[in-house]
């Protein structure tokens, strides 16, 4: 067991835990954007920043990655932390002004846009939280989407910005996206799903007839698990 202090509260943690885990277990709220329980922490949004250490040795670190240590003193709401948080949200608001989710989050945190940051006008809501790419790579295992370029030009895309041949149309990336940038469209009949510029033929449940998953996705799951496709042809309600 490791003993540390968070916001003047004495806390016990297990060796190897991160500050974010421990804080949440103890009801201490720390905002996050790029964090997800099923994924390795990315440390890219910096919203979960906290201050550790005291005096001249105090430094700002991301709680999603920083390991607990004996005697550590942590502050989740110091001036430096609040400044970082405010700046991150303001920068993202300027980058993706059309994201309702982001605007709501900012409002909930009491942060207003910084008027001096010229708001982007390209309609792009991506904040490069990396949840979609990480999900596709680690959870789905297909790596259909990835990054291109670097710096402010960095974007999430399919290779060559052309429809991907390996995408299975599962839509996990769209679910993971916190700003609504990744769009998934379904045809009126429900038989075609369109995502990342590609149309996917949907499979119908053999029991209720409802279209529930792309055929490509079922083929992929079959290939990965060895379960024959026919046995996968039932939607979650009818299983």
């Amino acid at each position, binding site marked *: 067991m490791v003993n540390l202090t968070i916001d003047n509260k004495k806390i016990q943690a297990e060796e190897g835990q991160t500050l974010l885990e421990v804080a949440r277990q103890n009801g201490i709220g720390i905002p996050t954007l790029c964090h997800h329980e099923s994924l390795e922490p990315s*440390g890219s949004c910096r919203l979960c920043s906290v201050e550790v250490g005291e005096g001249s040795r105090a430094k700002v*670190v991301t709680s999603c990655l*920083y390991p607990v240590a004996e005697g550590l003193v942590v502050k989740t709401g110091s001036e430096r932390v609040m400044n970082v948080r405010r700046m991150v949200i303001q920068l993202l608001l300027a980058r993706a002004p059309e994201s309702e989710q982001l605007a709501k989050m900012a409002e909930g945190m009491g942060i207003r846009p910084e008027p*001096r940051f010229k708001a982007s006008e390209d309609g792009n809501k991506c904040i490069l939280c990396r949840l979609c790419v990480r999900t596709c790579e680690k959870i789905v295992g297909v790596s259909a989407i990835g990054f291109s370029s*670097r710096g402010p030009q*960095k974007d999430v895309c399919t290779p060559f910005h052309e429809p991907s041949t390996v995408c299975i149309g599962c839509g996990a990336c769209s679910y993971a996206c916190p700003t609504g940038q990744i769009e998934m469209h379904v045809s009126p009949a429900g038989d075609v799903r369109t995502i990342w510029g590609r149309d996917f033929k949907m499979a119908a449940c053999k029991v209720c007839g409802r279209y529930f998953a792309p055929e490509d996705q079922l083929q992929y799951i079959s290939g990965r698990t060895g379960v024959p496709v026919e046995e996968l042809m039932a939607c979650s309600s009818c299983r």
Partner: protein
Amino acid sequence: MTSKIKSFSELKQLQEKIKASRDPQKLRITICVGTGCLAHGAMNVADAFSEEIDRRGLSVKIDFRKTGCHGFCERGPMVIIAPENIFYQHVAVKDVGEIVEKTLLKGEIIDSLLYADPQTDEKYVREDEVPFYKRQTRTVFGMNSKVDPKNLEDYLAVDGYSALAKALAMKPAEIIREVVTANLRGRGGGGFPAGRKWEETSKAAGTPKYVICNADEGDPGAYMDRSLLEGNPHLVLEGMIIGAYAIGSNEGYIYVRNEYPLAVENINIAIKQAREAGFLGENILGSGFSFDIKVNRGGGAFVCGESSALFASLEGRAGEPRAKYVHATEKGLYDKPTNLNNVETWANVPFIINNGGDWYAGIGTDRSKGTKIFSLVGKINNTGLVEVPMGTKLREIVFDIGGGILNNRKFKAIQTGGPSGGCIPEEYLDMPVDYDELTKVGSMMGSGGMIVMDEGTCMVDLARYFTNFLANESCGKCVPCREGTQRMREILVDITEGKGREGDIELLESLAASIKDGALCALGTSAPNPVLSTIRYFRDEYEAHIKEKRCPAGVCKSLITYGVDSEKCTGCTLCAKVCPVGAATGEKKKAHKIDSDKCTRCGACRESCQFDAIIVR
């Protein structure tokens, strides 16, 4: 090719044999063909010497050696004539014949090729008398003039690899102790104590352990690492092998910047030679220790100079850094214990082993030991690479060694530490140069780049330049760096274009503080330094741009107008000829004028006028 040396005594014997076969009184021409001199046309001069010597049938009588950078780049192409070590500078192909005829064969000095002090006109004959060299302490870099980087025997002739032999007879812990005593601090910019890093890596759990040489020298204006790697690759190798032995590593990497083809070529040749001679590979010098090195080239990304981004690149991924809450010494390359050091850091190691950690700690200041190689560039007379003990005063570097400001203008500031550093104004010229002192004034040592500026440099434009560089080089992973440097750039561009607003300076300061705290890696956390230091020392320039829409240095295009001083103008029509938009007009022999509506402020007229008649407002 040197065949495999199997023991320390064999090495000693070989060194003695080589030394004995070389007559110190023999005539020799040494010419620098480092990248800087090559750009000056040094290869043509070298070829001309080669041909002349052959033509006259003198190749047995005269030794001819091509070396890497000597450091006095302003004066290249340069040659040294042994045994007297006569120093000739600005040597052209047309001088070659005369040099061979007069100096080599008759021992006559050619006055016009000697270095002359620009102030006193006094001439200096020998290399070690030349003030530029005399005032330095060229412990590490001085060897460059003595070895042909492609010739292992040259390195052995100056006792090369003796430190390795000595180290292999020591215990690893003893070696680490020497390096700790020496207090060798990282020369790449971080200034972290190398000995402590070695110790942590040697104690870390897990195999294999890796030893890496960071040769991704990305700071614009800094080229010490390139010159060491090009000019004395065996020195760097020797340092790495010693380190690997001390740490317990058998696998090493040298990560070289893609834009350094000559360095890549020379280090590869040196590695091949080292393997053949038994300094790399299995059972080195019969010690039982095995170690080998691979060379990887960077892909053109400044961020890959950051250790975790470098690891990502070596692992075949985009160079994105990761959090370093767990040190690389525990989990680095492939999550294994890794010791990464800069080229110059490795190059210092053989000297520490040969002379002892105490000797090394006797040079420099309290907390910055040894010597450092700086690249002194910009508005300076003696542009080049300079090696001095830590603690040397800035004034001495800039004026005594550097020869003062170009065209006799006035010193305004000096930028140290590259894009991660800050500018230092005149009031600090008497400060000692060391890691902590530089940090105190808002800058940093960085890799050792020193850019000198005069009153013709706009500090706001400089901040914009650095911020632009960093925004372009940002990997894009974290919000503060990716978005923050972009917004800082936006504001700075506005200020230089006369669109600055009240409150911009304060906003820059607040953005800077949060980026310093919030960014993921050192590129991001140090990105605000150029902005903060220029605001700290030149706030008035910022205010002039914002409040008065005026650029005091006369640089920012949108804030200046060009005009003609009718008293100085002779009507030579040069400006009219070079003006791309026809804004400069006038009749021959009559005072010209410039139409400020048409003028694009490209600067061509200002550059071409021989009479200083172009006024900048």
